[in-house]
């Protein structure tokens, strides 16, 4: 059996507790606190202890979706991306780049936030980029 312990950081609140993911045969089976982490010193809250549960939820989206006549249809990445890019280009051509907004997120990584705002600024050409820090 292929088992491993992977150190990471809890993705709930802003405290940033060190966690260990327990992985068995490619499945996430548990979360433990990292004993020697400077933030949480081997302790976690109820949310941190159960961090793996939302990852494994059957409610997770498993493929891109496109809405057609009010209903979501499962699709692949190429179609979902191409369709969205086409629609965004149409909007930009018609109304200009400031007619697009991008909401990056306090839940994604620094690298992804960096790319998100780069996307808004360099690709779309707008500074309409924000996230839910206020909410």
């Amino acid at each position: 059996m292929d088992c491993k312990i992977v150190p990471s950081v809890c993705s709930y609140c802003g405290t940033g507790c060190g966690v260990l993911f327990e992985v068995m045969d490619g499945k996430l089976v548990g979360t433990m606190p990292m004993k020697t982490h400077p933030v949480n010193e081997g302790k976690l809250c109820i949310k941190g202890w159960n961090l793996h549960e939302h990852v494994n939820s059957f409610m997770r989206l498993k493929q891109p979706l496109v809405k057609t006549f009010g209903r979501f249809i499962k699709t692949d990445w190429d179609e979902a991306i191409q369709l969205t890019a086409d629609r965004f280009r149409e909007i930009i051509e018609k109304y200009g780049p400031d007619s697009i907004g991008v909401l990056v997120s306090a839940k994604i990584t620094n690298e992804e936030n960096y790319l998100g705002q780069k996307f808004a600024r360099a690709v779309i050409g707008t500074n309409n980029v924000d996230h839910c820090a206020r909410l």
Partner: protein
Amino acid sequence: MTNSIAEIEEAGCIFVIGSNTTACHPLISRRIFRAKEKGAKLIVADPRNIQLSRFADVAVTHRLGSDVALLNGMMHIIIQNGWHAKDYIAQRTEDYEALEKVVNTYTPDRVQAITGVDQKNLERMAELYATNPPASLLYAMGITQHTTGVDNVKSCCNLAMLCGNVGIRGGGVNPLRGQNNVQGACDMGGLPNVMTGYQPVADPKVMEKFSKAWGKKLSERPGLTITDMIPAMLEGKLKGLYVIGENPKLSDPDWNHLNHALKELDFLVVQELFLSETAQAADVVFSAASVAEKEGTITNTERRCMRMRKAIEPIGNTLSDWEIICKFSTAMGYEMKYENPEEIFNEMRSLTPKSYAGMTYERLGLDGLQWPCPDTNHPGTPYLHKDQFTRGKGKFHDIEYKDPAEMPDKEYPYFLTTGRMFAHFHTGTMTRVSPHLDVEQTTGYVSINPKDAAALEAKEGDVLILTSRRGQIEVPAKLTNSVAPGLLFLPIHFGESPTNVLTNAEAFDPLAKIPEFKVSTVNIRKFSE
């Protein structure tokens, strides 16, 4: 946070205002308990009786939205007694006179009339805070989600500087961030007015640097905040929206208003783990990989940048958010190609000289590094403003108290405040599907004082109808003395009883554009068939 989480244990006094720490930042409350047990004094000011209140040397339940008056009242007493840090003020700050002039008018009588906190308690708060250095001030959304959010924050800073508590170990002004990477999202320039490391969009030199690095002339027109985007959608100015990992339908201040606005969009694309309320309204949904399925860094509330590591392969046909953005960008005609997040991180740090430049994946290790970290030999910064404030001198602000946008009246006699409970998180997309969290609280509820409930002849679990000027929701009652008569509390996690049907989208801080989630007024009646 100006200071570090572990430093809280070294404080002589801890002042918690507008933070239900044990429920919302449990591992920070650990430090508060430990400090208290080592002998620190604890002051808790919160409109509700929270768990920490039981352990406080003085705990007050000030009226919703009266924080500025409370803090000015404390400063009034501190100055009257000469407890302020005179040398520190003279050497390290400016505009003290303006502050003194304003706080002079906040006599204990006046403060009691506004806040409901009596003179004895106010004096005790002032004395404990001023005479037990170093004092650490902790706050969360209870300070910021107000029409006077910026004023509230400035008042916290005023108090901390008045007693010389900024720039010292164990002290500081410490906002507790609510999302794992809200600090990082701000640091990375996920804001309409700044690029990475808070380099202003308004500075042509900054824009030139980024234009060059990204190979594209960048717009210098200021962008819209999320609060401004909603009216822009309604006016037909904003036509397309790309939402990454957010659920504004539940987290924005006015459900009905936003619902309307989203319908006006030509195209909405949402990138999510779950089919959230917002994703349901989308034209296209991008399925994203979760925390355990990707690499990258996050920056916590104490500015500590740490690496998350991939534990398992993405579930189903999901992709990391960075991969999706790269694909999307490339399809839009701007090629983004990165081997891994480390490559993106290195591009980012090369453009962010003051704060992130000295961090590398190797240096971050498992402990991370706290910014500012300007070069690769820099050990990181546990606390800010050590010998000098970032801006030079610490500026005092003269802040007058202002009423919240809504005050109880005949039609809407109850104060309503909103927040989190311990077992759930934000809009509940992640926690309500987690069996061990769901078991704690499966539905929304409204906290109501038993006296108010008795007046309505409502028992525990009876459904109450809450009505505000915006809308109405039905929600079961939870009887508790944690709220005083006349005050109701609604948790924000539950889509079936959405708080933002009731809260006020028109009321937000003019500068920070943060909505006044913490104060609105409602009427209640018992549901009868």
